């Protein structure tokens, strides 16, 4: 397949691995930000092909994983209302709230639907004027433009039965929080290529400067990741910092300006709660006052929910790269994809689920 096969070829992968092995002399800890990257690394077995000195830690870039428990409970509460149709990307349906999940609500008659785009939720709202259609707007800067577009379209159409449950998060504040933590181990980053397709990488330059780390904007195919790893490891070996762009076929320094403009029109930066991490100042997006009428939290009463996480789940340490999933006592015992204690075990992009699903064998 064009634009895919080129980035999955074994001879090129071997060459890139040889380069990495030749480059690395010292120990380094590299974090890939995005859950999609975590999965490619583990799916293709790259993590096991790297030099021993390289430790990969998996970042907070799984939107399902970092969506706070109370937000899931709000979605579940909305889905259980007879007048509401809850729409969501597929992954969110299996994420456990404090008592149940959206799939279980659906089995009990709740109107829960998987959509592939928030614009499909707008379409649904137009087609069913008698129902309140809510879209569960989660994700990083990657999904924000489409969600902004959905709200903007709903405003243009004068829809009164569409709203979003907004739990948008931003990458740079999370990176800052990880780097500022006293127990931080991360010495270099692979930045998330698709986030940077939207946002560009200007905003990473001050972070690289301030914390003296190399950051390489990286794609999602096996060869992208190998090349990104080579770039960040070479920079670490040479003591260089700054931002480099591996994913140049998709990312420009300034990013997708019209998308950014639309986001800025609909959303504003706000403090945001991250599951497993806590509140990070100015790390999320919320609807601007002009669009607040599309905020599901304001439209529906009774969503004032406060909950406690399972004390057994170490998702916070995993999302900050302090622990590996296999270092969790519950991994595979009290926590599995059938019965997840925390979100990283649920999402296809969660680090724990990746470790569980693509678990390891002794011999290559």
């Amino acid at each position, binding site marked *: *397949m064009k634009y*895919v096969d080129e980035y*999955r*070829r*074994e001879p090129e*992968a*071997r060459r890139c691995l040889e380069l990495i092995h030749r480059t690395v002399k010292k120990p380094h800890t590299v974090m890939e930000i995005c859950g*999609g990257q975590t999965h490619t690394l*583990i*799916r*293709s*077995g*790259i993590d*096991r*092909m790297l030099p021993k000195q390289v430790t990969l830690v998996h970042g907070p870039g799984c*939107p*399902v994983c970092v969506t706070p428990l109370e937000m899931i409970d709000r979605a579940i509460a909305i889905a259980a209302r007879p007048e509401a149709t809850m729409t969501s*990307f*597929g*992954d*969110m*349906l*299996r994420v456990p709230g404090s008592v149940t999940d959206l*799939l*279980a609500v*659906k*089995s*009990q008659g709740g109107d829960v639907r*998987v959509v*592939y785009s928030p614009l499909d939720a707008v379409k649904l709202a137009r087609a069913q004027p008698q129902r309140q259609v809510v879209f569960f707007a*989660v*994700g*990083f800067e*990657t*999904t924000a433009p489409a969600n902004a577009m959905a709200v903007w379209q709903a405003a243009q159409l004068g829809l009164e039965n569409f709203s979003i449950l907004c739990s948008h998060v931003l990458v740079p504040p999370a990176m800052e929080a990880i780097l500022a933590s006293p127990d931080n181990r991360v010495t270099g980053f692979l930045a998330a290529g*698709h986030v940077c397709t939207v946002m560009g990488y200007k905003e990473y330059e001050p972070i690289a400067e301030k914390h003296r780390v190399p950051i390489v904007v990286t794609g999602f195919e*096996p*060869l992208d990741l*190998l090349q990104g790893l080579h770039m960040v490891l070479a920079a670490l070996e040479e003591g260089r910092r700054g931002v480099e762009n591996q994913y140049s076929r998709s990312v420009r320094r300034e990013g997708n300006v019209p998308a950014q403009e639309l986001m800025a029109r609909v959303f504003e930066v706000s403090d945001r709660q991250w599951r497993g991490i806590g509140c990070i100042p100015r790390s999320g997006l919320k609807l601007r006052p002009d669009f607040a009428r599309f905020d599901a939290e304001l439209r529906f009463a009774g969503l004032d929910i406060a909950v406690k996480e399972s004390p057994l789940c170490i998702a916070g340490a995993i999302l900050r790269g302090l622990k*590996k999933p*296999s*270092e969790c006592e519950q*991994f*595979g*015992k009290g926590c*599995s*994809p*059938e*019965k997840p204690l925390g979100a990283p075990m649920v*999402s*296809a*992009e969660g680090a724990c689920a990746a*470790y*569980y*699903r*693509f*678990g*390891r*064998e002794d011999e*290559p």
Partner: protein
Amino acid sequence: MSPEGKADLAAGARCPIPISDYPAVLLAHGGGGRLTQMLIERFFLPEFDNPALRTLHDGALLEIGGARVAFSTDSFVVHPLFFPGGDIGSLAVHGTVNDLAMCGARPAALSAGFILEEGLPLEDLWRVTRSMKEAAAAAGVPIVTGDTKVVDRGKGDGLFINTAGIGLVLPGIDIAPRRAAAGDAVILSGTIADHGVAILSVREGLEFETPLQSDSAPLAGLVERLLQVGGNQVHVLRDPTRGGVASSLNEIAAQARLGVRLDERAIPVREEVRGACEFLGLDPLYVANEGKCLVIVAPQAAAAVLAAMRAHPLGRESAIIGELVERHPGKVVLRSGIGGTRIVDMLSGEQLPRIC
């Protein structure tokens, strides 16, 4: 990963969650993955327990009056009723014909049970009936008995069909997971994920440049041909329907207490299907097929069986995709396109499309 990590993983594969954790049936209970397996293992198997059921094959093998009879049943609830490459009627015929073929049997007769929802256009039922007639004729098997029930509007999804079938096991053939041996080749009869992706693309209104077609087809002819060539050297046959190739191979690995090693690059996937799967965030290994079979065959017969399959119109794209090994019993390990390895696990629930 730590040694503890590995032990945990094995424990996770063996220990299903208590069924009471979900007080009601979820769609995932019918998804062919772990939850389906749990229903079978905790409800049906212990309650109905008998030697024929215990083999957990696509059909039961019975000795009746000295004859070796294969007996199988399957229900069809596909939505939409008509899809590119088939409809619920042809699918219902192919499904049971294929289950019988996977027992090494030549299908002899089918039954058909219809559950009709009040309001179903008779024109639709007529089209489905015609389609079943044609599919049965093409598979060379008569539909000899049936039943019709109608439920109130809103109590069904237009039309559900159950088919059951019997067939005689071909002489000298013994298909059973316990016969699988280390060194056996794993042959796949063609491209994977065609059916699941075709259904999904219609259901979700996704349009691709190349229209996607279900692979729904009767496999009895292909199987009979490969059994003529491979005979008793063919150890296991399985049609990877819901849950896909990954789930079928996991079942075989568990039942045979052997490992399976796959080569990702050898697994045929149509370009447009791969594209759709990439786009939807689905892994083709877990997507349903309705006209493909997996053949586990002794290594010395593999080349001849493969050649025979490739000479058949329904097996032109057959390929050896892996082998059975002593190591990692019960697990399926895949060599990735760039030379890494990973475990291909049983799916927990349904595959859910990704966020981004």
